[in-house]
């Protein structure tokens, strides 16, 4: 049904292989892609004999309106398309479709200005690599039909492929006061982190933490540490973990009771991601954690 999209390589890459490779990369890079299925609404008002030429012009128009890292495919024999918007969620995709419709309304499609062309679309955000290419295509087409039945300039969303895979993250709490350590543990434990599961461990000081191999795993790791600790301080921990390879998976939130601005600047320069001055509102910590995790997926 779909044209093969052949690169000028020795081995041709099919659309299916290409899209599957993109989808596999979604999980690894934590970057969603969205597939938009636009379809021509008022197809019955167009002379069938002129259709191939019109479809070609529309395909060119879509290609001009997308970014270099987006990909446009034409569905053979039907006035329907398949556009892969890499690095975009469904919100960006919806904005893209609205912009397309607006451009068509205001300026028209080049060489097709005499035609009143109206589109509807279905949109599928892909957040995991589960399901097959065929399933994605089938559902995209089915929902596009529903969208076309509803009328012109309609957008219908497909949520089947959106769910992000459950990912385990590690959280380390380094705090001398056992009661506050427990408070932090409970606060993080109670936090709704969407598709992230947490493994939380408490440490009395930097020495106990650094002696453990807990932080050496490949997990995303949130380290919540007081600056002053009995044996090795939070800053010692910060320096040590920032020397590790793949340090971007580690997020360090510092807590302090009486640091100066210079201390805070030094901590930020050394790689701290956030700084909380005690006493602080636990809600602040919660939103900071949530925002950090949200930013992991783009």
């Amino acid at each position, binding site marked *: 049904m779909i044209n093969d999209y052949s690169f000028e390589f020795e081995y041709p890459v099919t659309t299916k292989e290409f899209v599957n490779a993109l989808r596999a990369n979604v999980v690894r890079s934590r970057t969603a892609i969205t597939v938009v299925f636009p379809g021509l609404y008022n197809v019955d008002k167009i002379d069938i004999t002129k259709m191939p030429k019109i479809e070609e012009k529309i395909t060119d128009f879509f290609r001009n309106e997308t970014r270099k890292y987006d990909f446009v495919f034409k569905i053979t024999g039907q006035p329907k398309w398949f556009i892969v918007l890499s690095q975009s969620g469904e919100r960006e995709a919806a904005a893209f479709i609205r912009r397309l419709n607006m451009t068509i309304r205001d300026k028209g499609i080049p060489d097709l200005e005499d035609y009143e062309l109206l589109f509807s679309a279905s949109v599928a955000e892909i957040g995991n690599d589960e399901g097959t290419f065929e399933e994605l295509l089938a559902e995209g087409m089915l929902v596009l039909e529903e969208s076309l039945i509803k009328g012109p300039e309609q957008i219908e969303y497909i949520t089947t492929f959106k769910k992000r895979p459950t990912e385990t993250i590690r959280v380390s709490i380094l705090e001398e*006061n*056992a*009661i*506050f350590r*427990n408070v932090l543990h*409970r606060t993080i434990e109670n936090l709704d982190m969407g598709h992230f599961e947490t493994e939380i461990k408490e440490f009395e000081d930097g020495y106990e933490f650094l002696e453990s191999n807990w932080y050496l795993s490949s997990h995303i790791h949130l380290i919540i540490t007081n600056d002053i600790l009995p044996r090795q301080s939070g800053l010692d921990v910060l320096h040590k973990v920032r020397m590790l390879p793949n340090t971007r998976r580690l997020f360090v939130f510092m807590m302090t009771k009486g640091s100066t601005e210079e201390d805070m600047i030094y901590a930020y320069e050394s790689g701290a991601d956030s700084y909380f001055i*005690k*006493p*602080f509102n*636990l809600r602040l910590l919660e939103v900071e954690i949530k925002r950090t995790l949200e930013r992991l997926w783009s």
Partner: protein
Amino acid sequence: MIEIAIGSLIKGIGVLFLILVMISLYIVLNNAKENASAEKIQIYIENKQDLWYRYLNDEIPLSQELIPNNDIEIKAIEVIFLAYIENVSNPTVREKIRTFSNQYLRRYYWRLLSSKRWSLRMNALYRIISLGIDSLADECKKLEKRTKLSTEERFQLLVIHSMFDEASFVKEFANLSIKLSEYEYKKLLIGFNSEILEKLTVT
């Protein structure tokens, strides 16, 4: 040469030895008592800190289990509350600690305020400030009238006065009877809003 009968010397040494034994016994028993109290406090904290978390964070209403039955439980609650106050600024948590302290810890601190021991009175003053026990403001004013008060106590009373009765504190501040260090002035004035600070400057 002074002559002391051997019998008297032995008696003297015996009495001193007895006193030493009694003192040692007292110290050992006292230590054992303190250790037992500390252990009980620790057990209370371990058993109840999750319940306290849930109550202070509005997950559950106040349960009968949290109302203290004895001084050990009060001391344990004090440790928990201080850990929160030093680290957490959530308004709900602060207000719950203040309300609970006023209702259930008031009598305990009132008793300490009336104590003849300076250290107990000072502890009570510190806690009244930390936990915001404004229901003891009048008791503190009565204490101010006592003549035998240390400078430290007078300063803490001044802090309490500034916390619970800002208006009359402004007047009192103008006629301070004790000398304050720069640090004490800073500690006293740091929590005031600009309006009060302006009044104090004019005064």
